[in-house]
């Protein structure tokens, strides 16, 4: 029997397609403007781990690559690096469990953070993620090495993952971490069951070791009191900004975020925001939460004292008004103001934003040196200021780690500017990679060699495990 016939036998005729047009829609995201297009040969929409298992057995038999994909490009799977089978997991989106008492959530791989969060909110819980978009889903944010930002005090989403159900390359359905106990009375209660932690093997793996079909998260209590405050500094005060970030993180504030003024280019342009003060270059936002108003006041005072200590000036209202529209700014949902801004930006630059670096990870203490290098190369390639604005957007994370993105506004069809960005990126990468910087990208071929040359031992270990688990190299071939 040929592959298509066998697939249809497993899945049913309606959910398997080798239509060129359908496959094309699953090609590697064209959004990045990388001129990188790989499309699958077949798309299969799976609904159960058992189907995934049978597909993997079949793929092994035919030695065909299999790539899983959730709904969204950002924080979702990027599509195949080689043809083969594209496994669309979007129908696997059930919420399996919300355990209010033990503060756990389990959902199928394709469930979006939005969906899960909406449900958690009703139970007084939350996930401290920045991935509240409709698309990023609970598995993808855990297994792709990109973008799954959480909140300062708690780290990234993968810091909250406690267990997986996954289908190994040979089709075996296994459970690791807390999910190993999901079918027992105690439920999926703890990541660190007896023995080594295997959850980590699947995180940031691009699915190379198995197809994740369920994810267990630990949740937090949704605090009743919140406050947001932002402060600004001139460019010359970058060391003070650094200290503010370091200390805000050390104080375990809920969230500490930093960006430069270029993030507001669009807002200023259409006069939605008053112009930023002359001497404003960096803006640091603090989010604090509390159980009582009294506790909140004290935390607000701590924020204010910290900013004061390092000479930050209050930018009243910015955090509130900006965050009110931010989530919709470039992810233009039903919010007319936000959409208008996006469209203005589009009109001005005849394009949209394009990541130069997505994402860079480095010690927070290096923020000044990294920023200055970004500025140096950005200026050299003329993408630093208007109208391309190399926007700096930094997530200060627990463990004194900065995860930052930088993007510029360009027309993807304009080869000159796309080329400038690529040259800028290459030059920066060399400097950054030599110092031990970490690149995160959805697409391993686009990840520079530093990714592995900086960690040859880990790479070697991964390849040994990969060979042991996936001898036919059917899952995410090209990743390791």
């Amino acid at each position, binding site marked *: 029997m040929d592959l298509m016939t066998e697939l249809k036998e497993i899945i049913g005729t309606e959910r398997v397609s080798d239509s060129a047009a359908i496959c094309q829609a699953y090609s590697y995201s064209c*959004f990045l403007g990388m001129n990188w297009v790989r499309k699958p040969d077949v798309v299969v929409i799976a609904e159960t781990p058992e189907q995934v298992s049978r597909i993997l057995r079949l793929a092994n038999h035919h030695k065909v690559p299999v790539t899983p994909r959730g709904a*969204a*490009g950002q924080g979702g799977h990027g599509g195949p690096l080689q043809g083969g089978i594209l496994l*669309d997991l979007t129908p696997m989106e059930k919420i399996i469990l919300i355990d209010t008492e033990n503060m756990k959530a389990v959902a199928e791989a394709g469930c*979006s953070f939005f969906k899960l969060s909406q449900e958690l909110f009703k139970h007084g819980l939350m996930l401290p993620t920045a991935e509240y978009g409709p698309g990023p889903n609970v598995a993808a944010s855990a297994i792709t090495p990109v973008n799954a930002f959480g909140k300062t005090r708690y780290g990234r989403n993968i810091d909250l993952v406690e267990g997986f159900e996954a289908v190994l390359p040979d089709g075996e359905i296994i459970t690791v971490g807390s999910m190993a106990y999901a079918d027992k009375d105690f439920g999926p209660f703890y990541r660190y069951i007896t023995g080594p932690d295997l959850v980590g093997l699947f995180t940031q793996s691009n699915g190379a070791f198995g197809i994740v079909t369920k994810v267990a998260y630990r949740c937090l209590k949704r605090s009743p009191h919140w406050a947001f405050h932002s402060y600004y500094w001139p460019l010359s005060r970058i060391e003070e900004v650094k200290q503010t970030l370091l200390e805000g993180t050390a104080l375990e504030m809920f969230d500490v975020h930093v960006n430069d003024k270029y993030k507001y280019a669009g807002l200023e342009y259409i006069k939605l925001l008053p112009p930023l003060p002359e001497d404003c270059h960096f803006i640091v936002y603090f989010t604090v939460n509390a159980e009582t108003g009294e506790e909140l006041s004290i935390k607000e005072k701590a924020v204010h004292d910290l900013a004061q200590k390092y000479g930050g000036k209050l930018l009243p209202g910015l955090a509130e008004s900006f965050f009110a529209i931010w989530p919709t700014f470039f992810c233009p949902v039903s919010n007319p103001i936000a959409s208008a801004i996006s469209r203005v930006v589009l009109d001005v630059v005849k394009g949209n934003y394009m990541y130069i670096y997505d994402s860079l990870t480095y010690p927070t203490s290096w923020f000044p040196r990294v920023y200055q290098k970004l500025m140096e190369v950005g200026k050299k390639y003329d993408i630093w200021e208007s109208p391309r604005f190399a926007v700096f957007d930094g997530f200060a994370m627990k463990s004194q780690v900065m995860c930052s993105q930088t993007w510029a506004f360009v027309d993807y069809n304009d080869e000159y500017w796309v080329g400038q960005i690529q040259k800028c990126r290459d030059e920066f990468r060399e400097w950054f990679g030599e110092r031990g910087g970490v690149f995160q990208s959805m697409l391993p071929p686009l990840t520079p060699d530093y990714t592995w040359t900086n960690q040859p031992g880990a790479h070697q270990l991964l390849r040994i495990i990969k060979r042991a688990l996936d001898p036919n190299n059917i899952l995410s071939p090209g990743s390791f």
Partner: protein
Amino acid sequence: MMDLSQAKLEDFRERLNLCLNCAACFYRGPIVPHNWRELPPPEWQAPSKKCPSFEYYRFRSHTALGRLTLAALVWRKDFPISDDLIKILYTCAGCNMCNEICQTFLPLHSILALREEVVERGIALPEPLPEMNAGIKEFHNIFGRKAKAKTPEKLPAEGEDMYFAGCYANYRLPKTATATIRVLKAAGINIASLGENERCCGFLARWSGNRAQAEKSARYNVEAMKKAGAKRVILSCAHGYHMWKNDYPRYVGQLPFEVIHVTELLAKLLEEGKIAFRHEINGKITYHDPCFLGRHGKVYEQPRKVLKSIPGLELVEMERCGKWSYCCGAGAKVILNCYPDFARAVAKERLREAQQAADTLVTACPVCFEHLKKTADQEAIRLKVRDLPTLAAEAMGIEW
């Protein structure tokens, strides 16, 4: 800023490949405020399931995002307009949910522009669109009926208040037209109509990608109304309403008369005290927003106002309502005619949703009404399906 609603495919050149793949147009969301202070405000709180073609076909291709991607490739000449592509393109229900969400890219407009490209290139449309378009051209109705349009009550051919019944009320649902006319007359409106000279509004032509025919229909109808002395054109059909109100001006310039849907008019008459509902209609009733009246036309409040004015009637909302209302499955009449299984599946889902909330579903568009009613009957779903004009008539004690 350019009005994208008037754009053709090439106008999307600079935008088509800029979609960020955020998936808001079809997946679960859109998004919640960043601050966790509260649940998303209702206007942000899109329902979980919102794109009918994604929910039915499940392929990423069958979403605004997927169609936008494909449109980009077609424009770049990187992809042919194949049969596959045609099917993907015409299984869009046109419900406008994606445009509601993604106001930056207005993906539905790209889809429509691509349909025009299909027709321009002379590529075969899905069955039975070619036949239906031919019917519009030859017989001026979408059903291909040779008989001329026939408004059930004899009305003057000229007047300030012109009733435009549309193909459904003219050919298939005369009771809707009758009830509408009698209610308006009871309100003291001197209602007139083009009668036999009324021609198809061209909606289906437009949604087939047949812009030429759509423009032709527009020119004819607008000219006829002008001649009849119209100050106000009153529509029963949401599709016609959208066509008259939003597309005709693009084709023929600003209209010299007002375009109003019957639900808008009834709400106004109630407000002015020109009509009143004195007969109780008991029961839990839910209102289904027709996509072309609601999201396309932004008419949400007036039909609810009318319903709430009926004594005895308890108006309840379905989970998805107002701007987040779900398509009835008729899908700009394209789905209804080309992909009846899909159309039925969507209608079933909508009917079941209504069943959760009420014992009667009321809608304000003959197309939605007929499709939902027929599906309820076929599937034996125990839910009364009504259209708003007849309900108004009943509440006023008017026979129809």
